[in-house]
């Protein structure tokens, strides 16, 4: 298992290099200009000077190489400095965002809490809702509960968030005034009342996101449960005189979780990818909003780094999903 994991990890490096190169070239070739947001009152010559100051003039391959060095060599040093208080990276040029002229990594770190609060919580909430729904719908296949669950989850899957989002705002913020329509990223949770405020501002984006994720997960769970409920070992367990709760809740669920957990693992990168539309509807300035503004501002270092981190997560969670599969299912052994 260990060698399997290390081998996959080492193989992932060329993969990631390739992916980063493709993304870089894509971004290079894509039209757009970081100066697009500078007002027209600034004349072109000045814009040209600003571009040069950002290092835009250099040939793409040189720029790519610089980025590689920065992300793989200098940023880790910064991390080491931060942890051990050393001075390895001092004076070295980090990956700098064109919009803010500050290190991209710092901004990303700043955004992660927001994203985790909202998207992460939504994911957890969705899992907590989806699994029981899936389990019960499968156990009572074709029952009223199953039918209703299917309907609701499908509606959840099919309604785009830019529809549900504003709808919730109109109902709960404008009409009822229960929840704020604008997420306050500076809010600090330190006691119960502030926690309540945090809950209030989270509840709508979390609802919108969780609705969609629940839909997909509960479908997977249901299908997986149905597969397993028909298996022989279920009959064996019943023949032992175990109660239904144990038969279904322990024997069947444990087996059904195997594929579902890998599905969950594969979905985790998307948490860090943020939820572009939901975040912008509720003004949760998380990673998704960061990516979107960076895209529209053509902040290539930012877009590149975010996309690359996303790619790393995808590759990593692919690996984690495989390993989890092996851990959960004793039949699978990687060696």
């Amino acid at each position: 298992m260990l060698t399997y994991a290390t081998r996959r990890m080492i193989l992932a490096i060329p993969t990631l290099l390739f992916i980063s190169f493709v993304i870089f070239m894509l971004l290079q070739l894509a039209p757009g200009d970081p100066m697009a947001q500078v007002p027209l009152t600034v004349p072109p010559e000045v814009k040209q000077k600003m571009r040069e100051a950002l290092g835009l003039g250099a040939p793409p391959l040189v720029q790519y190489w610089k980025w590689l060095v920065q992300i793989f060599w200098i940023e880790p040093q910064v991390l080491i400095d931060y942890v051990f208080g050393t001075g390895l990276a001092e004076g070295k040029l980090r990956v700098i965002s064109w919009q803010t002229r500050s290190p991209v990594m710092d901004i990303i770190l700043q955004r992660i809490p927001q994203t985790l609060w909202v998207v992460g919580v939504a994911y957890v909430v969705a899992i907590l809702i989806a699994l029981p729904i899936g389990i019960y719908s499968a156990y009572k296949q074709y029952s009223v509960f199953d039918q209703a669950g299917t309907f609701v989850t499908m509606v959840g899957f099919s309604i785009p968030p830019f529809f549900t989002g504003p709808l919730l705002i109109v109902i709960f913020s404008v009409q009822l005034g229960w929840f704020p329509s604008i997420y306050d990223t500076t809010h600090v949770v330190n006691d119960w009342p502030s926690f309540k405020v945090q809950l209030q501002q989270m509840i709508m984006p979390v609802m919108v996101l969780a609705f969609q994720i629940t839909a997909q997960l509960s479908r997977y769970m249901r299908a997986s449960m149905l597969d397993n409920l028909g298996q022989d070992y279920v009959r064996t367990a019943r023949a032992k005189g175990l109660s239904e709760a144990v038969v279904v809740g322990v024997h069947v669920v444990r087996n059904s979780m195997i594929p579902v957990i890998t599905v969950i693992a594969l979905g985790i990168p998307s948490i860090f990818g943020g939820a572009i539309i939901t975040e912008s509807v509720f003004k949760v300035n998380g990673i998704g909003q960061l990516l979107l503004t960076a895209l529209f501002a053509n902040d290539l270092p930012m877009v590149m780094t975010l996309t690359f981190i996303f790619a790393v997560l995808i590759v990593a969670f692919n690996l984690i999903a495989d390993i989890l599969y092996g851990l959960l299912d004793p039949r699978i052994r990687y060696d």
Partner: protein
Amino acid sequence: MTESPQDDLILADSSPRGVEAIGALKDTGPTAPPRSRGSDIWDQLRKHKGAMFGLGFLTFITLAVLVGPYIYTVDPQKLDIRNKDMRPIYTALWDSGAKVGWNKPLGSDQLGRDNLAQMLAGGRASMAVGWAAMLLSLFIGTAIGVVAGFFRRLDGPLMRVTDLFLALPILPLLLLAVTLFRQPLRAGFGPEGGMFILIVTIVAITSWMPTARIVRGDVLAIKEREFVLAARSIGSTPGKLIRRHILPNVLSPIMVSAALGLATAIITESALSFLGVGFPSDFPTWGKMLADAVVRMEQFPERVMLPGIAISLTVLSVNYLGDGLRDALDPRIRGR
């Protein structure tokens, strides 16, 4: 040689019980008349209420957007500024002061464009994008999945390519494609046709990955099944193996992907419209109508509700249809 082995029974014992008993030693053949798989699947599908609702609604909506514009011939792009901001006719039921009129059955938007005509035209675009992108993505996903699953050596590289596409950001990709291909496509297919091809392609190439993964998994399993070995032993070439033996057997996950793919494509197109990088501005799609109307959601709820419900219902019915199809295509379930 007798026509049928069952006839042999008559030769056996004379007691009727005995005849039957010894007959049991024969293979018991099917008693029902032969039925094609197609009608079998259809029978199964018919029993799935959700699938039937889905099929019905899908047929309805497809017919409506295809035939509708010939019946309701109002030009969806025609501005009629005097009749702007009309409410749908049914609002008169509870609000007698509302600005309604039979000339605009579903009301009109802020420039006086007819909502019904826009719904029909927009549905046409959304459905076309959905179907085309879904088919394309299905094609790519299936091809990659089958090749990766079938040819061991290509498995690794193709799965890494899948990772790559999972990581590709759609917006720059679309912008790049617009830069590179809009002009040639516009020359060949007109401004709307060209954009259509671009959007369909981009949606497709950013959404085939789950299909490829699922298909690959299934192909890996089916490849180990004995009938594939049997087919090899009777001299089937790899191409034929894939076409005749493997593809038909991965049809059921593909159908499910198809259902989800149509939904994803419609939603992605509308999300692109929402972000402002979709079709030309005077070319209505449901997604664009919805996105444009969100700011006036309170005064004119119908303008978000109509396209919103249309999108949701379409996606919902496709999902249901996919569910039903999966059940119907799975022989294990069909038997029950």
